[in-house]
């Protein structure tokens, strides 16, 4: 990985140099200090998992795992905490945002990687990065004042719901998917492109038949991470989704997600209700961790192939 001196454990500088005992001890101590810092990351994840679960695990008792995971009604006034409508809501807007956002993002990445002139690249790439920097509340704000009335015209309802939320989320996940896809395309060896062109293929044919398949795993990774982003997004969704915990009734019907329900309810929730919200948090945590594991597993598979 780095230097030839790093051979085995417990050997600093690989014992190739003469050093005073003091220096040896100091080096070893420092190395362990850094190790400790690195382990903080692991400790952090563990802490999040432990505390969130501790605060939320009573949903297993009340309302009970079956009622929680399989319940079709979420109503705090009735004391029912079934997450299915929320799960459907999350799925609906995630799907919607991927359908709209993934092609746009991949297209942008391909554009940046294969077609854009250096000048265009210097405009578009910063634009993608800055899009990532816009706070979610600003996106939600934008969705609320600009998109909602348009969606209302299109769907005949009030404009709160899956359509508006999907559009906003699509814009928000474009930077994530685009940057990672661009990286994936960039790691395809240039020789492959040249060979393709040498055989008379057009740019599009090269992209479509050669590059995209070559970068497939990277693109899938990017999409999965984009999906994770969409699932976890909260503030923008709360402002445009309508926050009605009901099953999907159409693109223009209000809907609630696992994330939006937490924000809406948290400020006044007590007792079982609050515990249920932490239950939602646990689910979200597990989903995001699962997606990360999936991406890592896919990358490992890909590495083995190559």
């Amino acid at each position, binding site marked *: 990985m780095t230097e030839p001196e790093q051979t085995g454990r417990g050997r600093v500088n690989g014992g190739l140099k003469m050093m005073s005992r003091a220096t040896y001890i100091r080096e070893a101590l420092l190395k362990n200090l850094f190790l400790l810092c690195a382990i903080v990351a692991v400790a952090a994840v563990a802490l999040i998992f432990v505390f969130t679960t501790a605060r939320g695990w009573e949903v297993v008792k009340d309302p009970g795992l079956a009622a929680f995971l399989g319940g079709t009604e979420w109503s705090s006034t009735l004391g029912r905490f079934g997450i299915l409508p929320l799960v459907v809501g999350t799925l609906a807007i995630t799907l919607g945002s991927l359908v709209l956002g993934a092609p746009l993002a991949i297209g942008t990445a391909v554009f940046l990687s294969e077609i854009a002139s250096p000048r265009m690249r210097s405009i578009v790439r910063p634009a993608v990065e800055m899009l990532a920097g816009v706070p979610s509340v600003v996106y939600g704000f934008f969705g609320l004042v600009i998109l909602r009335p348009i969606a209302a015209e299109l769907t005949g309802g009030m*404009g709160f719901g899956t359509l508006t939320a999907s559009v906003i989320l699509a814009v928000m996940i474009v930077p994530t998917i685009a940057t990672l896809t661009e990286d994936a395309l960039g790691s395809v060896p240039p020789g492959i492109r040249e060979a393709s062109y040498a055989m008379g293929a057009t740019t599009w044919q090269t992209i479509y038949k050669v590059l995209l398949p070559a970068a497939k795993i990277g693109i899938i990774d990017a999409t999965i991470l984009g999906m994770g982003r969409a699932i976890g997004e909260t503030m923008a969704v709360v402002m445009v989704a309508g926050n009605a915990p009901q099953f999907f009734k159409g693109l223009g019907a209000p809907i609630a997600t696992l994330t939006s329900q937490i924000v809406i309810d948290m400020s006044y929730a007590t007792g079982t209700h609050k515990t249920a919200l932490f239950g939602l948090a646990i689910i979200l945590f597990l989903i995001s961790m699962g997606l990360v594991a999936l991406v890592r597993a896919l990358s490992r598979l890909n590495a083995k192939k190559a």
Partner: protein
Amino acid sequence: MATLVLALTLTGCTGGGERREVIVTGSTTLLPITEVSGEMYTESHDGIAILVSGMGSSAGIESVSKGSSDIGTSSRELKDAELDLGLEDTPVAYDAIAVIVHPDNPVSDLTTLEVRSIFAGVITNWSEVGGPDLPIGLVNRDEASGTREAFSKIIMDDAQFDHGAVVLPGTGQVRSVIADVRGAIGYISLGFVTDDVKAVAIDGVEPSEATVVSGDYPVQRVLHFFAKDDLSDIARDYIEYVLSPDVQDTIVRDAGFIPITAKEAIGD
């Protein structure tokens, strides 16, 4: 939106002399009045701090009867069990709720039962209440809202709100959506009604300051300050301040309520 928040209003560095405090706890509905008036009182009265928090009407009543706060604010009347706690009642404002629809909506009058049925999702088309053939777009407030709590008690009377209603955590949003969507209906504090929306008459009574004060308009409640009669002088002074035009005509109205001074205070 600010509910579990302790709003500490402290004076600047005060030199010698003890700091005297008035502790005000209770309804979150009253927070706009108590927080802002408390702040203003603190600014103009050196050495005195009004400490405000919002944990709910019940908590406020309990706290003042136990002595852990000076004033308990409440958006509801005292329950029977609370009547002999020796609490003095000072009403500070009327909270009237207007049911609003799009200005072009021909419907101008609804009965309480019709409103309840609409918000419960039983009536779903304007044609069922004498309007055009247009689906009703329900707009509800979030459960943390005092306005929703009041509406639920007065109109819904234990009936459940339709799950499919859009839930918006703010008055302005409710108003601007209803001003924009022809079939929408919602409810906001009367003080916030503007020309962008139309407030319907309930059971034949038009909502206005006059009908609220006279008690004819049904969708209203009184906001209270409760205190024991061994109240400290500064606390009394603060209550006087809240009843003065400085607060009644500005802060109370800004918060969408109707000043109690619009008529001499009518107790309950």
